[in-house]
């Protein structure tokens, strides 16, 4: 029981990270109907920028603790958003309205570029980081097993909820959000009605990238070890989350993220750690085969 509770806590904090990445996938898919293959690597860039700024702040002795984490988050969000914007500008915008496979290939190319760019610039070795926020509260003590709710996990959950609240406000209450939703429904009509669709799409990438940056920073702080390759697996799993929740649906992405995080954690805890990726991939396949519109998505109507 206590063991399961611990896994629940771990699963939710992992799921929040997946959810944040999944939102980026689902937004881009909703608006331009492509899988942004490089999104996982944008997440990786976010983690690296967070690492660099954290090392600079802490080893420079400028500040530490929660204030440092806030600054790190902001820096990482800004720089990663710039990366998201650049990727869209270089690799996707010239291909808009072109042959449908072209952006997919160019996205795969961009993913290779980002991975190897970070490998060249930052080295291939894994980067270990000492815990920034150690400790936690004891939730439950059963026999020898202690259920820990660490401060880091609390921070992840709190930050994710806060970011998602801001994001929800942005999408539902602001002119930008309205433009985004309009583009999602019908891009041509939206542009006829005077919405700058190119700008809206760019901003979608910027927002998606900054959410991924938050996820990257959280991942770094929680696990303390990153390398240039973390983006691929995290990306595929987050995409699974987006599909599971129903692609195009923003609450669905977060829900899917939580589910994937929980399933992965419980699978590793009770079955086998080696096959945890197989679990995630199988869910992806099963969802798409039996429930292609996901949990909260709309069924696609095919018109002849």
């Amino acid at each position, binding site marked *: 029981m206590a063991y399961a509770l611990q896994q629940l806590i771990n699963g939710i904090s992992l799921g929040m990270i997946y959810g944040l990445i999944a939102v980026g996938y689902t937004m881009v898919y909703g608006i331009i109907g492509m899988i942004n293959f490089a999104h996982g690597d944008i997440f990786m860039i976010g983690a690296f920028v967070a690492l660099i700024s954290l090392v600079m702040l802490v080893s420079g002795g400028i500040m530490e603790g929660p204030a440092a984490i806030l600054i790190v988050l902001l820096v990482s969000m800004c720089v990663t958003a710039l990366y998201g914007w650049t990727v869209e500008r270089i690799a996707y915008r010239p291909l808009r309205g072109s042959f449908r496979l072209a952006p997919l290939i160019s996205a795969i190319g961009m993913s*290779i*570029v980002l991975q*190897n*760019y970070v*490998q060249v610039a930052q*080295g291939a070795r894994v980067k270990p980081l000492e815990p920034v926020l150690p400790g936690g509260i004891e939730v439950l003590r059963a026999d020898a097993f202690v259920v820990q709710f660490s401060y880091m996990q609390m921070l992840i959950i709190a930050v994710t909820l806060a970011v998602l609240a801001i994001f929800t406000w942005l999408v539902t209450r602001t002119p930008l959000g309205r433009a985004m939703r309009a583009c999602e429904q019908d891009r041509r009509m939206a542009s006829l009605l005077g919405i700058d669709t190119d700008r809206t799409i760019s901003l979608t990438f910027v927002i998606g990238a900054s959410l991924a940056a938050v996820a990257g920073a959280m991942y770094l702080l929680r696990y303390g070890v990153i390398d240039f390759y973390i983006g691929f697996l995290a990306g595929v799993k987050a995409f699974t989350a987006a599909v599971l929740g129903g692609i195009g649906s923003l609450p669905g992405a977060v829900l899917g993220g939580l589910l994937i995080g929980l399933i992965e954690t419980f699978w590793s805890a009770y079955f086998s750690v080696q096959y945890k990726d197989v679990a995630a*991939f199988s869910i992806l396949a099963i969802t*798409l085969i039996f429930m292609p519109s996901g949990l909260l998505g709309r069924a696609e109507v095919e018109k002849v």
Partner: protein
Amino acid sequence: MSGGAAAAVAPAQRPAVAVPALKDALLTALVAFGLFVPIVGLRTDVGANGGLVLRQRWGDVAVLVGLAFAGRLLMLAWRAVRGDAKPATAARTALLRKAGTFVAPVLLALAVLLPFIPGTGRYELDLGILVLTYVMLGWGLNIVVGLAGLLDLGYVAFYAVGAYAYALLATIFGLSFWICLPLAGILAAFWGVLLGFPVLRLRGDYLAIVTLAFGEIIRVVLLNWVSLTGGPNGVTGIPRPTFFGLPFSMSGEPGTFAGFFGIEPSPVHRVIFLYYLILALALLTNWVSIRLRRQPLGRAWEALREDEIACRALGINITTTKLTAFALGAMFAGIAGSFFATRQGFISPESFTFIESAIILAIVVLGGMGSQIGIAIAALVMIGGFEVFRDLDEYRMLVFGGAMVLIMVARPRGLVGSRTPTVALGTRRAIGAEHVAEGRG
């Protein structure tokens, strides 16, 4: 630096665009500055006491920002000089086609004669084998993606199935290469049907992602099923191929290749044999797909690619059409896989990562989906180019990915985008790239 030279060129040609171009380039430089400062400018290294330390590299940042500025300026200048791009005309398409009829025989002759061209050493032959392997994989995947329009991102799984099938059959049961080759093809085709069956209803990107998942599942299973596959250590001691029973050995005994034909034993013999083997296998793939295209099955594939709903309405059996495409594509990957295993003598899951699938798909798309010659050229350019840039070491994949993006942006339809109908009433006319339907899968 070179930015100044470009700035001098731009106003000379179009004075009106010089100032906005300069502004634009400055903005690009600013963005580049923002991008490169954290990742390039500050490198994290593991320090002496195990913690991370920062190393500053402002010189590199300055060079990169300067390059971005100059590059943007040059690009704008080039655009101003050239004007808008002209769409490909029918005449140009026809000209390209005419040129294409020459390119194919020349390339083929070159491929056949390569081992006898003076100056061809071991390295060139090995490179040729590598390129031909990718040509074969590209042609195999072309059946699935280019002809049937089913977007498959997990193609490397079938390559792995073929490689492991040969490796395990040969090392455990001692079966010879020539028995294993068709067996590996059949096994891979079986897996193609098995994985194809659940995804029959999926289309487009969804299909791509599920096939990616299947590919990764197979790789993770190969990695973790240690008792059968050896896990990350792979399978070693895979028997090398024999010339129809005559081994390539240096001893020169009558039972060996050199002894039987009474020639001087040389290690190059095996390489030449492998080269012709993969050339024959690749040409077999090519021949089968060209022949099938003219048959009802191939025509059903192409119809499926153009419009699935219309296909169904016309009474084409979608299930068998899709499954045969998956099975045949997988079969050729399996055969290529067992060739790979016998050439290497050692295989491990490392060789079958997602990046391989991406490279093969990129070859098919860059070649212009459905064009046999385009795929061969794309494989030559991509894999050959990759080898040419061997000296770049760690920058090689960076250049490779960048080239993928650039080629796609410059030629979204691939190198050979136009198509001629396989079957036509009256005269056959080439169809321009912009009218070619895409694989919706």
